[in-house]
């Protein structure tokens, strides 16, 4: 699998989801450095399984999560409950995963039903780190919103 192609699919998915579902324009750049996240942050992820395995995850500070989830739910940041935030971020990860999967199927001939997508998992807290236990190649993109908020989307994927 070509890394540049996968990053392109992921970027397309992120930009499309944020433009259409969150009403927020974002730009994406491949990130080669460690993610710069504050101790208090959230992570939402969906996994892929089948002939290919891996995951897509989104990592945001609590402040940025409030903003993007507020945009998506048309609610004022600061008024969202923890449940609203978790559900909205989980749904965003679900949509990014779904669009990436659709792009993958379109661009890789014969890959229909190539893998299943799990329901989203959300992690919320302080001073935690997540590790995908896989030797799959990993790709990280830095996503910058039109309001200059930064978050990250990661992809790990390989043939099973």
């Amino acid at each position, binding site marked *: 699998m070509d890394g540049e192609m996968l990053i392109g699919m992921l970027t397309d998915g992120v930009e499309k989801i944020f433009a259409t579902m969150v009403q927020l324009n974002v730009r994406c750049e491949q990130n080669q450095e460690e993610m710069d996240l504050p101790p208090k942050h959230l992570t939402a992820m969906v996994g*892929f*399984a089948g002939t290919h395995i891996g995951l897509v995850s989104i990592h945001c500070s609590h402040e940025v999560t409030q903003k993007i989830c507020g945009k998506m739910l048309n609610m004022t940041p600061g008024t969202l409950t923890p449940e609203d935030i*978790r559900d909205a971020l*989980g749904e965003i990860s679900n949509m990014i995963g779904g669009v990436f999967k659709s792009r993958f199927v379109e661009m890789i001939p014969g890959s229909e039903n190539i893998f299943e997508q799990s*329901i*989203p*998992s959300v992690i919320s807290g302080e*001073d935690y780190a997540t*590790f995908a236990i896989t030797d799959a190649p990993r790709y990280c993109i830095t996503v910058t919103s039109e309001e200059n908020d930064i978050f990250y989307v990661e992809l790990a994927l390989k043939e099973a």
Partner: protein
Amino acid sequence: MEAENLYTFLSITIMEIFEKMMSLKIHEERDSDNVDWQDGQYLTAFVALTGKLQGNIYLKCSLNLASKLTGKLLLMEGASFEDDEIRDAMGEIVNIVGGKFKALYSEVYLNDTNLIQMTVPTVVIGKSFEMYVYGDVHVVKTLLDIEDEKISVSLELQMN
């Protein structure tokens, strides 16, 4: 999907993996996760199930117990391990637990083990975090006492 059957599958899985495979003496407290996890760093390892069954399987314990379980898995009891070795081992243990549960469930309900897939394991380490599965889920949980330390084994499966 009956909760009692899920608990039975979980109980059999625990016996097979922790007692038989890892030769551990365990004491089980059903439906319990009554541990003060805020005392120091702890680790949660999980795999997601997709396909005919959707949800997560979790193992949650202290880093100290994770290190001991690593030694058991690698047949190197009493040894010290690097952080990545512990993460890899706990990821492998939850992968084995998930695989066993999947096999039991598939044998009873599906007659085909290929209708449920598992994603890559993920390990989360920190002092203060919570995990959530998106949507309404059945929760089946149990607490194991292993050498005076606790490990929580739980399932969160999407309701039909």
